[in-house]
């Protein structure tokens, strides 16, 4: 039985892991290698690492750290942050990372996703898009590298990136990030209806019920979450967790 994926989405800042709220106020939550070891034991479906400093500060990806992460990781791994050309993407895959996610650079370049997909294949090429609402409440693509809301409609942008060759989409709702109030199911449905490749949604998960809603009501192929898997309780104490296989089977028990 094919199962939708439940994916911890972890943020790198330097050599440490952090968690943000609404893409701000990064709080240190621990060491990434230690986190991977715990997630290995918990048999997670997949992991996403996003380096929030790399693209904002224009740094190269932290290859030394990524190589260590990849060698500890016995499940699929997706990396995003600071990727501006196909050579960087190829180098990341050569370290043992399955998927490369491109975000800000694909807002600025119409050809980058296609160039990476031609080299790595569509299924290793993830188009990541951050979304915020403008003052009218309309969804717009947010460029988190320069902290600016663009005029781009996320549906059109995502469709263009898939047409260019992306084999998967990662939608991150910046307004919902860290709030743990649930995914914006309207946004999830809109994006999932717009493309026929797998869609990972991120931003807002506070419970396993939110994850089920994103998958079963929203149509997402995978639900990613940060706070849910690194914090516990109302005071956001750091504790890495992940549901057991039994919990996941029960949660996602085949909807027909």
């Amino acid at each position, binding site marked *: 039985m094919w199962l939708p994926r439940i994916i911890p989405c972890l943020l790198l800042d330097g050599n440490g892991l952090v968690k943000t709220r609404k893409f701000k106020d990064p709080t240190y939550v621990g060491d990434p290698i230690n986190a991977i070891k715990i997630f290995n034991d918990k048999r997670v479906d997949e992991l996403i690492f996003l380096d929030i400093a790399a693209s904002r500060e224009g740094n190269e990806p932290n290859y030394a750290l990524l190589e260590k992460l990849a060698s500890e990781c*016995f499940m699929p791994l997706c990396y995003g942050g600071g990727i501006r050309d196909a050579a960087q993407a190829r180098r990341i895959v050569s370290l043992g990372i399955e998927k490369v996610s491109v975000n800000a650079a694909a807002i600025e370049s119409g050809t980058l996703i296609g160039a990476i997909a031609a080299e790595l294949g*569509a299924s290793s090429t993830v188009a990541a898009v951050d979304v915020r609402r403008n003052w009218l409440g309309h969804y717009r693509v947010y460029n988190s590298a320069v902290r600016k809301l663009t005029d781009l409609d996320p549906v059109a942008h995502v469709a263009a990136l898939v047409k260019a060759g992306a084999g998967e989409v990662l939608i991150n709702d910046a307004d919902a990030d860290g709030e743990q109030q649930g995914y914006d199911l309207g946004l999830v449905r809109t994006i999932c209806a717009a493309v026929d490749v797998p869609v990972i949604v991120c931003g807002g998960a506070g419970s396993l019920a939110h994850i089920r809603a994103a998958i079963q009501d929203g149509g997402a*192929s995978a639900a990613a979450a940060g706070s849910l898997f690194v914090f516990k309780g109302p005071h956001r104490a750091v504790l890495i967790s992940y549901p057991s296989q039994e919990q996941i089977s029960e949660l996602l028990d085949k909807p027909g």
Partner: protein
Amino acid sequence: MFGVRGMSTASEKAILITNYGMGNLGSIVNMFKKVGGKAEICADPARIAAADKLVLPGVGAFDHGMRGLRASGLRDSLEEAVLRRGASVLGVCLGMQLMLEASEEGQMQGLGWIAGRAARFPGGAGCPRVPHMGWNGVRPVRDSPLLPQGEAAQRFYFVHSYKVECADPQDVLAVTEYGQEFCSAFARGNIYGVQFHPEKSHAYGMAMFKRFLEL
């Protein structure tokens, strides 16, 4: 759970991971090490021709893979080891598909070690999203040392848009359901192929790699 009990002396010699410029070889080496085996990335035609056990990995497009095999000069070495000396070989993902005669994805001929071809998953209304990406069950249809029957349900990680269609149903080792049932593992004598990525399938992948070590 993954102790070294029952390790055969045959595994003293390293498993060679064929390096023809395709795919994520480090992950495969890491997982063989994790289960107590020795594995090395190898592009040396002489060593591959003399190998006892081989992995043919690969991700990416079919023709790109066949070109890589040709450019690396490893095809003859692989065939010497696999077809003439009977070395066990495990094709992973694209590596499995390259063992077939052809693929809808490309124009080039495959290795032709297993009769059959790779065909694209159907798209459109009512069909699940392509690529088939994520975890799925793998059900052995016959018993084999690589994927024994009668074990608890096994799950592996898949990423692919084309599926294997064996010409001889006897070659099918395991099946998986994604919109339709397809061949997710085949075996013919010393030749094994799996569509999924055992190196990224944590406990299930480790158990399978351990069984490959013990073949």
